């Protein structure tokens, strides 16, 4: 289907089903139960899963295929967000022009930064991208938000104000980002018994876009272009002496992944019309690196899983507080209840970072291929412990032989 082989078609279908039914899948617990705390099926978080999924997929096109580890990808996401909000401010709340411009501006930025940074490889490349992103962040945070020339509105983030021109805005349209009148935050809520499911317009826009870009990512991975990128990763030298110019290949990959980042940034602004400078900080760039590795760099679905994992912890675990704990353990005798709360306390609420850090370590130590490997192991167990036959070249995370002479 769509020019994909059977395996990829299945993968795409699985992703499609998962995203379309996410409002159900992510809200497995009745709204009033103690476990409802773990429900993730509310619009904002679902949108974030998708948006960061797109960001991570794009990052992985660069990192997973070429091995170039960019430590400044958040800059493109930030630039995308700023562009989108500027469209909202100047022209219209319609998301189509905003998202389009995000992608275009991010492409221009990544073309420039990529062109310069790709003159170096390895760690030198990483630090160059980091430096560009940190400069963008610093400029956005203060210099570009000075009262005379306020491009970014600094610390607070760029917002739409009532007195902004919005030339193409009409009163009949929602006062929030919308798709030809369909407001991005309009949500249809379905109550089924004790359960509640939210179907949000913005989420479904993101979901459709995700499916498109995921499909494109599959095509890229399976294309001659993708093969060339993997060849660059494997041996640039041989590539050159084989008559292929590596620079345009890597630059193209860089720009494509920058466009994905810009798209994610644009969508982020479309879901919530604010563009903050922290989006460009190194921690944000680091986050997408972690997402890709955590999920399984070089795999198609891994980065999406990694993105979901991190965002889930950030949004769900940070909200568990002692009161919630007490309600969970209230069935226990008082002393034991307090003891349990005491034990769990450091890992939730303000301790969610600790949990995340521990999980990072556990995943890399026990699942060298990332979450995808975890999934494969489970699948293998279910299939009855058969060793998988040697892959047929379809498997895109070739285990490198140990780099003894690196």
């Amino acid at each position: 289907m769509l020019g994909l082989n059977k395996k990829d078609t299945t993968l795409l279908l699985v992703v499609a089903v998962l995203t379309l039914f996410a409002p159900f899948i992510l809200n497995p617990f009745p709204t009033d139960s103690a476990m409802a705390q773990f429900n993730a099926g509310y619009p904002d978080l679902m949108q974030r899963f998708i948006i960061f999924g797109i960001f991570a997929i794009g990052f992985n096109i660069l990192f997973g295929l070429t091995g170039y580890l960019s430590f400044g990808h958040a800059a493109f996401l930030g630039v995308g967000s700023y562009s989108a909000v500027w469209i909202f401010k100047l022209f219209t709340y319609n998301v189509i022009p905003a998202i389009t411009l995000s992608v275009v501006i991010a492409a221009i930025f990544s073309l420039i930064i990529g062109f310069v940074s790709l003159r170096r490889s390895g760690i030198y490349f990483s630090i160059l991208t980091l430096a560009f992103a940190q400069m963008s962040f610093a400029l956005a945070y203060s210099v570009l938000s000075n009262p005379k020339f306020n491009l970014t509105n600094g610390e607070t983030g760029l917002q739409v104000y009532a007195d902004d021109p919005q030339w193409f805005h009409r009163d009949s349209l929602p006062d929030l980002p919308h798709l030809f009148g369909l407001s991005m935050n309009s949500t249809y809520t379905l109550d089924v018994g004790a359960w509640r499911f939210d179907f949000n317009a913005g989420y479904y826009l993101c979901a459709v876009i995700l499916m498109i870009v995921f499909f494109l990512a599959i095509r890229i991975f399976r294309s001659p272009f993708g093969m060339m990128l993997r060849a660059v990763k494997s041996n640039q030298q041989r590539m050159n002496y084989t008559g292929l110019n590596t620079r345009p290949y890597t630059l193209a990959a860089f720009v494509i992944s920058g466009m994905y980042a810009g798209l994610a940034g644009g969508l982020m602004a479309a879901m919530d019309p604010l563009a903050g400078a922290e989006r460009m900080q190194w921690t944000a760039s680091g986050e997408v690196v972690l997402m890709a590795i955590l999920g399984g760099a070089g795999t198609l679905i891994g980065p999406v899983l990694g993105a979901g994992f991190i965002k889930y912890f950030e949004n769900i675990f940070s909200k568990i507080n002692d009161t919630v704990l007490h309600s969970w353990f209230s069935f226990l005798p008082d002393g034991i209840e307090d003891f349990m709360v005491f034990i769990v306390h450091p890992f939730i609420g303000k301790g969610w970072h600790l949990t995340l850090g521990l999980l990072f370590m556990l995943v890399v130590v026990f699942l060298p291929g990332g979450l995808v490997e975890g999934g494969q192991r489970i699948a293998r167990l279910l299939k009855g412990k058969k060793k998988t036959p040697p892959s047929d070249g379809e498997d895109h995370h070739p285990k490198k032989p140990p780099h003894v002479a690196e």
Partner: protein
Amino acid sequence: MGILEVKNVNKNFGGLKALSDVNLSVRENSVHAIIGPNGAGKSTLLNCLVGKLIPDTGSVMFDGQSVLGRKPYEINQMGISRVFQTPEIFGDLTVLENMMIPIFARRDGAFRMHAYESVARERGILEQAEHVLEDMKMADKRHMHAASMSRGDKRRLEIGMCLSQEPRLLLLDEPTAGMARADTNNTIDLLKQIKEERDITIAIIEHDMHVVFSLADRITVLAQGTPLVEDDPQNIKGNPKVREAYLGESA
């Protein structure tokens, strides 16, 4: 006038004269062997031909065009392919993929962004790659990761990759080193066959005299960066200077 003309090439590394005043002319459709003691500058000369090194002085003309100042990929696009002394392959890719890449390079040039097409649909290229694998007797290894092959196999793969490009000039740096005798013989046959079938010129560096004398039409002996003699194989064999400097008594 040969297809490859090397004129007055000099190359120094620091104080070391690796190549001094090298002149070489390789006739079209011939096999030209370059032999000589270790460290004579043979690989350095090859490096100057493919753009890995730039000679300090001198000129290198391929088919009437200068190769100097061109990037390696441009030189390859001119029709020069090279096999390295230590195998250079795409270790993370499968053998089949390794074989496809040079064919893409020949078809599409230095850069072409087929980002939406599928590798699996590139029937022509797949077939061609399979064909070369058959020739190299490696078809059974097509889905192996290239890095996990034994070294002899890696070398055969690299030769295959270069042949698949149908180059006009093929540069081989010790192609059969570490190769089993059976495969060495295969390779000799293959090269002979290719030379007959195609319009190809081969320059080969080898320490295995069996290979050199089976293939070469002409031999240049390089010593300490300068050509010592250039002659037909039979004359080289008998040349006392060469025997002393290079061949030793056992040859």
